């Protein structure tokens, strides 16, 4: 006998003591998938039969189960589970994590269980215990489905138990193996002409013959409808015919929309309110043969709430899908897919007030959805709404995946008056021109910052940020940093090679090159190092670019900041002047055109060093020079006097003369990078370049 269970299940084994649940579990499931009440009892009391420990043991069992289900792992509960009140929290747990509760009942003769227990000396309880359990089991059998178990498998003989084979089935929504590429199409609502226009734009071959219409995607591609094929629009049956034929031919997938589901209920004869354009569907389908209506009902009814595609990188659902619900199956998941999340209130237009799940979305999968008409599809935290309100006179939009390219065709007319003005959001002056992501990023969330963080990077390894470092960074960034929208780049400190093994050198070229080679660098650019202060300069072509690229409004065409993200200049005029000059240079040199860019980010060394690092110079470099030049002439003079008395000190004199000379050269070296700053002109014109400064500054 083959028992089919969904891959993400909470499997509850049910049977009296001695019926062989543990053996059954061991035979069919991995040891880590099995949570046994006996083991949990032993964990808390050192005795797996200690009934006093039962309550604590189950607390642990449910806790581990919840962690496993949260992580999307099949979990088997190996306990007698013969009482309804024991099963109830398990069903609730499965529902909480949108896993499917499965009951496997080992309903074996009481005598067999009693005999087996007798052969196990640690089970000292008498046959009356098993008898009571068997009775409770028999009473439970019928109620299991009502209790919420979506699959119930009852094995009633030793042969059935031994012959059982477990087959794990992927959930319907799991299409991770389907890698596309896809053309994901927004809410159609009966706009057949526009759908054909769009498919043609997407290079589909569309043939109409008689009442039939077929569309064939370019080789390898597949269409996905985000739902709401029906209601409101002029040619609902034609849209359904096309979508159904494409689905049947394997050319399209379709997830259900709330309108589609309401139509099914109507077609099945349920009493539903004829609102929001359902009348059009009823009217148009009423002119179709009953057979077609049945096909439509069957098709829509069979749609899977949402799909997880391309190794989990893409999720398509009508109203979106939270990360913790992706690839799960439960009534709540389905509801979310159809309706999203609402506050339970309605707005002035009588529409439900929606919670913006997308602004809180932090998942890795791209989520493509529709449901609420928007003027333009806009990315927000890896989600995008592609319902551009075609039936309201907007447009019909498709997202090409993985290209992330939007393709739209305009509505030929307004077919249906929206309940609330569309597009509904008139951007304010402040947010005009900002993308949804930029508007969202205007206010950062503390939850995204605090605590230990592991950050995957696009180009390199993951980066782990320790909790205390995150806490320190929060303070530094909050108190001192410029608007974080500017801070696309914080330069690393200069990464030196390891100190030379040759004691007389700090670093040595051969060893440095060997080091870089060992670290995997194949090219090393060598430049003369000048002592200035690290400055990152961002310059945009104009303020509109600052707005569109950086989402920064009213802060000019750029910024100059330090390596820790603070504004480099305390006087705004000097900063503005610097940015203007660089802007002028970029225009005059034609660099905008050459780089094909409207903005640049320059990593610079800004001189003089003394402008920003005066404290460092005074406390460290100046002091060292001063101390050396105070002490060494005295030492040389003393050694010269000593030399007149005793030739032995001659080598020491030479050494200290050299030291004195080096001290003077040290001072000369830092002095070259120090001069007084009165205005922008004193920051040498050549001090900033697209890389580092190449030539020492000639004064004046």
């Amino acid at each position, binding site marked *: 006998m083959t028992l089919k269970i969904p891959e993400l299940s909470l499997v509850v084994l049910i049977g009296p003591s001695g019926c062989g649940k543990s053996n059954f579990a061991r035979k069919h499931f991995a040891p880590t998938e099995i949570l046994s009440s006996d083991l949990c009892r032993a964990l808390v009391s050192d005795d797996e039969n200690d009934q006093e420990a039962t309550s604590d043991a189950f607390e642990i069992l449910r806790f581990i189960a919840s962690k496993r289900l949260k992580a999307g792992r099949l979990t088997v509960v190996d306990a007698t589970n013969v009482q309804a009140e024991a099963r109830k929290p398990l069903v609730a747990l499965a529902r909480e994590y949108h896993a499917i509760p499965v009951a496997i009942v080992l309903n074996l003769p009481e005598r067999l269980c009693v005999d087996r227990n007798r052969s196990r000396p640690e089970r000292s309880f008498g046959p009356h215990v098993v008898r009571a359990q068997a009775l409770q089991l028999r009473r439970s059998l019928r109620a299991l489905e009502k209790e919420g178990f979506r699959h119930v498998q009852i094995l009633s003989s030793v042969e059935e138990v031994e012959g059982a084979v477990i087959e794990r089935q992927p959930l319907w929504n799991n299409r991770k193996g389907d890698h596309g590429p896809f053309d994901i199409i927004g809410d159609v609502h009966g706009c057949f002409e526009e759908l054909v226009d769009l498919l043609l734009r997407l290079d589909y071959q569309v043939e109409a013959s008689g009442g039939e219409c077929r569309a064939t995607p370019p080789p390898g591609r597949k269409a996905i409808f985000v739902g709401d094929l029906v209601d409101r629009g002029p040619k609902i049956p034609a849209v359904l015919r096309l979508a159904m034929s494409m689905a049947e031919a394997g050319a399209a997938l379709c997830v259900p929309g709330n309108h589609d589901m309401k139509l099914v209920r109507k077609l099945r004869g349920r009493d539903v309110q004829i609102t929001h354009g359902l009348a059009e569907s009823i009217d148009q389908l009423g002119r179709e043969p009953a057979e077609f209506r049945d096909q439509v009902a069957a098709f829509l009814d069979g749609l899977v709430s949402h799909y997880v595609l391309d190794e989990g990188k893409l999720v398509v659902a009508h109203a979106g899908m939270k990360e913790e619900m992706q690839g799960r199956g439960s009534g709540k998941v389905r509801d979310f897919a159809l309706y999203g999340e609402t506050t339970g209130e309605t707005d002035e237009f009588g529409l439900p007030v929606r919670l913006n799940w997308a602004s809180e979305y932090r998942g890795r999968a791209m989520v493509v959805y529709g449901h609420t008409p928007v003027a333009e599809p806009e990315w927000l935290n890896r989600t995008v709404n592609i319902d551009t309100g075609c039936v309201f006179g907007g447009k019909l939009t498709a997202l090409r995946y993985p290209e992330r390219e939007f393709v739209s065709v305009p509505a030929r007319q307004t077919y249906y008056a929206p309940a609330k003005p569309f597009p509904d959001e008139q951007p304010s002056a402040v947010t005009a021109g900002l993308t949804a992501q930029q508007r969202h990023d205007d206010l950062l969330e503390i939850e995204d910052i605090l605590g230990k963080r592991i950050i995957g990077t696009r180009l390199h390894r993951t980066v782990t940020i320790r909790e205390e470092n995150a806490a320190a960074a929060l303070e530094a960034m909050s108190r001192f940093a410029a608007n974080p929208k500017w801070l696309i780049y914080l330069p690393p400190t200069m990464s030196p090679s390891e100190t030379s093994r040759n004691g007389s050198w700090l670093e040595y070229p051969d060893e440095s090159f060997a080091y870089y080679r060992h670290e995997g660098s194949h090219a090393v650019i060598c430049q003369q190092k000048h002592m200035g202060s690290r400055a990152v300069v961002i310059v945009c072509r104009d303020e509109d670019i600052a707005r569109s690229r950086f989402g920064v409004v009213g802060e000019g065409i750029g910024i100059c900041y330090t390596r820790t993200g603070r504004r480099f200049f305390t006087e705004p005029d000097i900063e503005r002047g610097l940015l203007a000059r660089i802007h002028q240079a970029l225009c005059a040199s034609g660099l905008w055109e050459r780089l094909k860019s409207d903005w640049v980010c320059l990593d610079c060394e800004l001189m003089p060093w003394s402008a920003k690092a005066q404290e460092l110079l005074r406390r460290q470099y100046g002091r060292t020079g001063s101390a050396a030049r105070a002490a060494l002439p005295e030492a040389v003079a003393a050694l010269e006097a*000593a030399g007149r008395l005793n030739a032995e000190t001659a080598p020491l004199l030479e050494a200290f003369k050299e030291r004195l000379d080096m001290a003077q050269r040290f001072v000369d070296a830092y002095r070259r990078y120090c001069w*007084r700053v009165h205005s922008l002109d004193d920051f040498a014109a050549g001090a900033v370049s697209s890389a580092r400064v190449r030539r020492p500054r000639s004064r004046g």
Partner: protein
Amino acid sequence: MLLKIGAAVSGEDLGYLLHKNPARAHAFDLAFGKAHVFYTRLGEDHAEAALLLDVDPIGLVRSGRQTGGEGALDHYVNDRPYAASSFLSVALSRVFGTAMSGKSKERQELADQPLDLEATIAALPCQDGEAFLRSLFEPLGYAVSAERHPLDEQFPEWGDGPYWTARIQGRARLRDLLTHIYVLVPALDAEKHYWVGPDEVEKLLRKGEGWLASHPRKEAIAAGYLRYDRTLIRDALARLVDEDSGDPEAEDHARRREEADLETPLRLAEQRTGAVLACLRAVEARSVVDLGCGEGKLLKALLEDRSLERIAGMDVSWRSIEAAQRRLRLHQMPPAQRGRIELIHGSLLYSDKRLTGFDAATVVEVIEHLDPPRLAAFERVVFERAAPRAVVVTTPNFEYNVKFPALPANRLRHRDHRFEWTRPQFAVWAAAVADRFGYSVRFLGIGPEDFVAGPPTQMGVFAK
């Protein structure tokens, strides 16, 4: 660094006194480099010996001889090879240990008698000026002449350097001169090359025997020698003399006058607390979050108000949060009291769910620490997301600054203030915020109101 010792004795006598043969040059290996001893003058009635230290600065850094924190020895570029420091004392005791103990096999009577001596030290660090330098040596009977070296003569705006070439002359026993140098040089330098531990106190007391207790600057000497470690300083001073040991903290470097000092005569902080509490009572707040709570001054007052059932304090500085925990004795609080208060590490620039659900928020002397372009984020965090019924904001009134005699014109009250607003500026900002987020706002002054300049602190009370 260089120490020269001259004496009005013959070269041969000085050689015996120092236990170093004048005919030769001597070299000693020390942990931090080499010490050289040679003679620069060998006359009949005057002789001079030199102790020259050759310190390896890179070796210092590499050997991990760090002092911890931001000491000079964390960097390759440091003044340690040149500045007279505790290295000199270490070298003295190694190289002239016998002379310091006052023993001389051949010339004991010379060792026991005062001689005309002269010591030259280059470069001797003394941040606090010539008067301080003199005040250390002169009470011991020396004449001091000192020449200060500029930090960099090309950049006079960098200020004076801390280094001197000091000449110390006087009639003293050689052992005393060496001992005085042994103690006073590190006391001047205050940057020791090794950790200061309790045994340093013993060393100081031993070397200071017979002269330190009666030295008028003994507190400063102890403080410098022990690197400003307060416990050790108190211990040393207590053991030095029975009489009143004075206040070692008085010798701490004078700190800049700051906001608190400026405002102290007005008792402004207390008045602010009183005003804020009155506002909270007026709006019948049962719960309040103090945004930018610092070390918890206001929280303490809030805790005493029993009508508040739930109190939270948030600050961006983790150190402030820790200080608040200590100040409020959070760990010793009885559970009922402890349950009323929580401390949150967070920022006014980040939306934070922990800040929701309070009746009122207080933002006392905080906004002026935010850069003006970041105020927009603050406004949304407080008025849009946290959105309590009432928000109390206080900030300095810039107009009042003219009333602080110690504050130069057009300066702000604190280094970290990014702005200070006049009353009209505050009113314009507050009205715009109130309008945008659906609050009403009224304005109150805190502190003695000046006819022209207004009150020292201004307060805006926002209500929904």
